[in-house]
């Protein structure tokens, strides 16, 4: 796209939602994609060691973070996840 076209599009489309008030009792829902061989193993070890971590993080094990796909990320957001954490 040409610079002019980009500018025209940027002008026409309000691409970012307005910021909203954050309720004081709100916790973001975080989804972690973790590689089986490292990050997930670390999370596993943390469990074995009875270490605690934030309750609002849910972990999904992946065979490798190379398996992460656009659609997983987008689907997570579609379903209301607030943030993603990819570790591998």
């Amino acid at each position, binding site marked *: *796209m040409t610079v002019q076209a980009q500018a025209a*599009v940027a002008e*026409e*489309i309000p691409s970012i*939602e307005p910021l909203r008030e954050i309720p004081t009792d709100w916790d973001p829902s975080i989804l972690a994609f973790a590689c089986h061989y490292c990050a997930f193993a670390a999370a596993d070890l943390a469990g074995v060691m009875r270490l605690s971590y934030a309750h609002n993080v849910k972990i999904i094990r992946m065979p490798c973070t190379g398996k992460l796909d*656009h*659609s997983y990320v*987008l*689907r997570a*957001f*579609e379903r209301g996840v607030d943030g993603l954490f990819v570790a591998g």
Partner: protein
Amino acid sequence: MIVGEQKPLEELWESIKDHKKVLVFGCNTCVAVCQQGGNKEAEILASLLRMKATQEGVDMEIQDSGIERQCEHEFFEKTEERVEWADAVLSTACGIGVQFMAEKYPKPIYPGLNTTFLGAVEELGVYTERCQACGQCILAQTGGICPIARCAKRVMNGPCGGSTNGKCEISKDVDCAWQLIVDRLKLLGRMDDYEKLTPIKDWSSDRAGGPRKLVREDVQHDS
């Protein structure tokens, strides 16, 4: 290949927002190479549009699917059901695919891309025009570089007076096609050919002659 560029999301939303069941339909050949309209991009686009629908509070279903080529009948067979399901299709094929689908199905088929040109993958993420399908190739005379597609004035006996340091007068980022032609003729030891006047072109095989058609009777099915 045919290069396309996805339309802005807002424009796509405007075209589909009044429908209840929308199929975002990819075309996995040319426009997949430029990563704008393949099945993968259709899947991503469908997701973005679902989020948009949620944000706008519009109750609609958006699914995605795709085939290898939207410009051939055979490929549509396996996705007939998906297309039947939808009240409207957002096709991420080039303009050919969109029209071909529209001829096949009596429902709205919207374009997801702006079809931009016939080009090459110069490097990953960079696509550049090479051909304008004028219907009468002159590459043999011009050292393999097309002045019709690559000169901003399609000058047949170039360059024009605006060529500077090998660049076109319209932009320092655009190569002068005739500089490329001269360089190439020199490389091939054919500079004598430069002085041959290119005759006035017959544009009747181009767009100017009306919609074009090629019939190969030898490969047609007997009817």
